């Protein structure tokens, strides 16, 4: 099934507008609330052979997509289309964070980021070589995690004092045990195979205040994908993500000791709720030195991640600059304190 949103005024194809949060018509400028968009203007067509291919309702062209794509543009006439059967049933997202950064804002934010690159070659910042910017909803699983931890540890408290010409070191040993309930809410893990996990982790955090119940119109005008991994498959990844958090919580509950060595640590983590959620990401394809660099931008906060090219000259300049000024400062201090320079 192919879905297109037709403007009640003029019949053009409407797309989601990140500034207003409404469906907006590119021809007449009409804006419609997503919650109240008239059902009659949603054009749905069920295609008997839709498992194979989709057709654009405007021009009849075949919509070519990859198997994971859920929202795209008609490659012929450019109309935003959603592939509804890939967004329903098991594949229906529960939540979505809509784009709050428009394409123009994303370009500006990206340029600003390249200018701030302190180690990037000069041409990287000045050159305007954004080849392509794609707004994409990336599938994530959000896990509410309930857990218990039971830890035992041997802790010591050491104090030392001097009596006469003897130094006494007293070590008190304690058996320490902590049992605790743990709860973590909406820990994300990206469910798309294409997306680099490390890159997606660095895009966090998203502001969950903007988390909305999923409605298809949010996707109009962007690319979207469906998940490649289900929530069971990704749970181990989320577990490995929160174990350091749990460890730091555990150690925060054991305080006042000189040393703590764990003798037993049992952590149980269960998923309580799982939400299939789409997060907004701007993918930026940037040409530099005949090489394409890919960056990702958080479509809600504007945070940019990705490996920029590094200028060896700038690295050396910073290193020498910092080392030389640190040396001068140390010399100045030693002169002030000791009265001697060399």
């Amino acid at each position, binding site marked *: 099934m192919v879905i297109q949103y037709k403007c009640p005024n003029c019949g053009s194809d409407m797309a989601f507008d990140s500034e207003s949060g409404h469906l907006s018509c590119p021809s007449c400028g009409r804006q419609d609330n997503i919650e109240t968009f008239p059902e009659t203007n949603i054009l749905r067509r069920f295609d008997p052979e839709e498992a194979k291919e989709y057709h654009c309702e405007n021009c009849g062209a075949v919509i070519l997509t990859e198997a994971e794509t859920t929202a795209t543009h008609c490659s012929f006439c450019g109309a935003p289309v959603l592939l509804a059967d890939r967004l329903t049933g098991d594949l229906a997202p529960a939540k979505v964070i809509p784009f709050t950064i428009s394409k123009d804002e994303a370009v500006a934010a990206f340029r600003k980021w390249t200018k701030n690159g302190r180690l990037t070659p000069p041409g990287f910042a000045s050159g305007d070589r954004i080849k392509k910017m794609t707004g994409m909803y990336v599938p994530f699983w959000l896990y509410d995690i309930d857990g218990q931890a039971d830890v035992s540890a041997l802790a010591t408290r050491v104090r030392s004092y001097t009596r006469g010409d003897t*130094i006494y070191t007293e070590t008190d040993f304690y058996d320490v045990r902590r049992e*605790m309930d743990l709860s973590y809410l909406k820990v994300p893990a990206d469910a798309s195979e294409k997306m680099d996990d490390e890159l997606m982790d*660095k895009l966090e955090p998203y502001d969950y205040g903007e988390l909305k119940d999923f409605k298809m119109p949010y996707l109009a005008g962007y690319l979207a994908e469906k998940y490649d991994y289900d929530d069971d498959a990704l749970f181990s990844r989320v577990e490995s993500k929160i174990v350091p958090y749990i460890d730091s919580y555990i150690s925060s509950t054991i305080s006042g000791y000189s040393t703590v060595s764990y003798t037993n640590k049992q952590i149980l983590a269960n998923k309580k709720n799982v939400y299939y959620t789409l997060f907004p990401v701007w993918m930026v394809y940037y040409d530099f030195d005949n090489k394409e660099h890919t960056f990702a931008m958080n479509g809600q906060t504007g945070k940019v991640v990705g490996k920029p090219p590094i200028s060896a000259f700038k690295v050396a300049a910073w290193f020498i600059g910092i080392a030389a000024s640190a040396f001068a400062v140390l010399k100045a201090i030693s002169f002030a304190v000791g*009265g001697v320079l060399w």
Partner: protein
Amino acid sequence: MKQFQLKGLMMFCLLLFFISIGGTAASAAVEQRVYDNANLLTSSEIAELEAVAAEHSRKHGTDFLFLTSEEQAPFFIVEYMGDFFDTWAVENGQENAVLLTMNIATRDVYLAGFGTAETTLNNQRVNMVLDRIIPDMQRGDYAGAFRETVTTSSRYMEFRPGVNPENIFFKTWFQLAVALLLGGIVVGSMLYNSGGRVTTTAGTYFDGDNSRVTGKLDQFRNKTVSRRRVPKKSSGGGSGFGGGGVTGGGRSFSGGGRKF
């Protein structure tokens, strides 16, 4: 970047300024500084030592003097040294001096600071100089030990009174190492973070309302006590004595002596 270069330039100017204000006025013209009564040095060694001592004496306005003797016991080196200096100071009209006295017969050595040298070469610094020259003395390399006395004392006297001149923070190699390490750490972390930093923390997804400690135990088990002696600072060799005083002529001095 521009701001940064400016800062570097200012630092450099500051450095030049500090270099240029070193050094102090010359001392009175003293002709003889080495009194080798025990004939331990050759004439060329004496000439060389006179030259080195004269150079450093001018630098500090303090004369570096050497006195050797071979008197048999009973011999009191502090008194011997005090009497010598009372006479010398009157003859030469100079109260600021560093005086190394040694007696080859009793194997005593005593280093004293008079006048301004009493503070610029205090007891602590005297002992540090002795630590360095005693091994040479024990080997019989008296010329080397005397030269070392001049250069080391002169070096120590450049430092403000009260600070330890051997402190590692005053060593150029240490300062250089710290500076390079700092540059490496800063640039390394810039490189590491150039691709974007992880800004989620343990608190990002933490649900404080439903996380709590449900069981807590801190049970004392046992106690161990270990004892060790306060470590004694080992002296560089031989037994130490002295620690400053006043000469028969009423001149106070800092100092320290050893057997070698």
